């Protein structure tokens, strides 16, 4: 989260889900909203982490338990997330497919965005009209900062200290690539590590689906971009492995 001139200050930082989640607002954020948002983030981490073999999701994946045998509240969260995964699988034509992951169903590609979206709703419900929740580049916003819409830099895939573009965001944005943690993208068609995009960005109303669509776009490339173009409210921006920049017409690029 590089600082920039005139940037709205980050109000709260929370280390969770293997990343740092920042809440940013031009206004003071309500303490109860922050507390509930933080609680939801840690809850998502506890239920869904695949790093911990004893997490509810890990035990489900390993076939040690069925959904019915889990704590009812945890099971409800997992059922909700798997429903959203199914929606995302359909939207990407199978390029995002948690059911094809080695080791059993793995909704990781959607969970971070889903959790950040829930955190954003917690803040909004507590009265925060203008807020950005940034979970390691998965960003959900409401309202706006002082001086115009929320502006997000899309990191340049070849230059970590530079941006390829700046876009305006009114709902959510996520960017996927194979680079922060090489090997994290699996192509459902082959089960192997997938490489097609240097950077795949998706904007839209819901961060969980946006997150999954970005993963699907990174794996599926331009054909998925065409699919996103047909989804009302969603847009995509793809930087290919060989340096081409492709975007749907609705992506809101702005001058830096």
């Amino acid at each position, binding site marked *: 989260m590089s600082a920039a001139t005139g940037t709205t200050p980050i109000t709260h930082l929370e280390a969770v889900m293997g990343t740092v989640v920042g809440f940013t607002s031009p206004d003071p954020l309500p303490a109860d909203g922050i507390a509930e948002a933080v609680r939801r983030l840690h809850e998502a981490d506890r239920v869904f982490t695949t790093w911990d073999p004893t997490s509810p999701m890990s035990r489900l994946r390993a076939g040690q338990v069925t959904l019915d045998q889990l704590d009812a509240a945890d099971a409800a969260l997992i059922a909700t997330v798997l429903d959203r995964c199914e929606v995302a699988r359909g939207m990407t034509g199978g390029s995002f497919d948690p059911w094809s992951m080695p080791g059993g169903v793995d909704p990781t590609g959607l969970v971070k965005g889903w959790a950040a979206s829930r955190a954003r709703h917690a803040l909004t419900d507590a009265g925060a009209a203008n807020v950005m929740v940034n979970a390691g580049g998965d960003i959900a916003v409401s309202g706006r900062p002082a001086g115009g819409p929320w502006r997000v830099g899309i990191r340049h895939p070849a230059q970590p200290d530079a*941006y390829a573009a700046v876009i305006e965001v009114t709902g959510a944005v996520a960017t996927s690539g194979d*680079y922060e943690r090489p090997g994290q993208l699996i192509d459902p068609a082959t089960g192997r590590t997938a490489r097609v995009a240097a950077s795949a960005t998706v904007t839209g109303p819901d961060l969980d689906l946006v997150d999954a669509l970005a993963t699907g776009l990174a794996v599926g490339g331009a054909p998925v971009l065409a699919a996103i173009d047909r989804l009302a409210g969603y847009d995509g921006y793809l930087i290919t492995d060989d340096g081409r920049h492709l*975007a749907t017409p609705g992506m809101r690029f702005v001058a830096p």
Partner: protein
Amino acid sequence: MQRYQLVLGGTVAGIAGVLAFPTHSTKLVIPSARASATTSTSPTTSAAPASKSSAASSSSTKSTTTTAPASTTRSATSADEQFRYGDVEVKVTVTGSKITGVTIAALNETDGRSAEIDNYAVPQLEQQVISAGSVNINGVSGATFTSQAFVDAVANALQKLGIS
């Protein structure tokens, strides 16, 4: 899963920019295809490690220092590195042990839908690199590292040159 084809000429000409090579701190400058064709023109067919003589001719083409062994310009082309839609070969030029150029020697894409891809092209963004600190933003979204296929290809070419 449908596949597509990129127009090779447009693709290679469009590659201009700077790559950060994540395993080293060196920045790799990728000249455009036309520029590289005039700067480092050793016959790409020869295996580079054995081609001291052809390397000398390539450095003379460049008309920089020609004699000092430490600044001899050599180049090598990697083996094909597979990626999702085909394979890529990268040609790396070094002067002494410093990388002076990286170009795409071959890019083979399978199955074609180039027309549809071109509808989405935003070529003006290909020229754009916005340095952090010069821009007013509220957050950052993005992946960090260079394409792994590209990195693998560069590493392979460097290995052929005896630099790893």
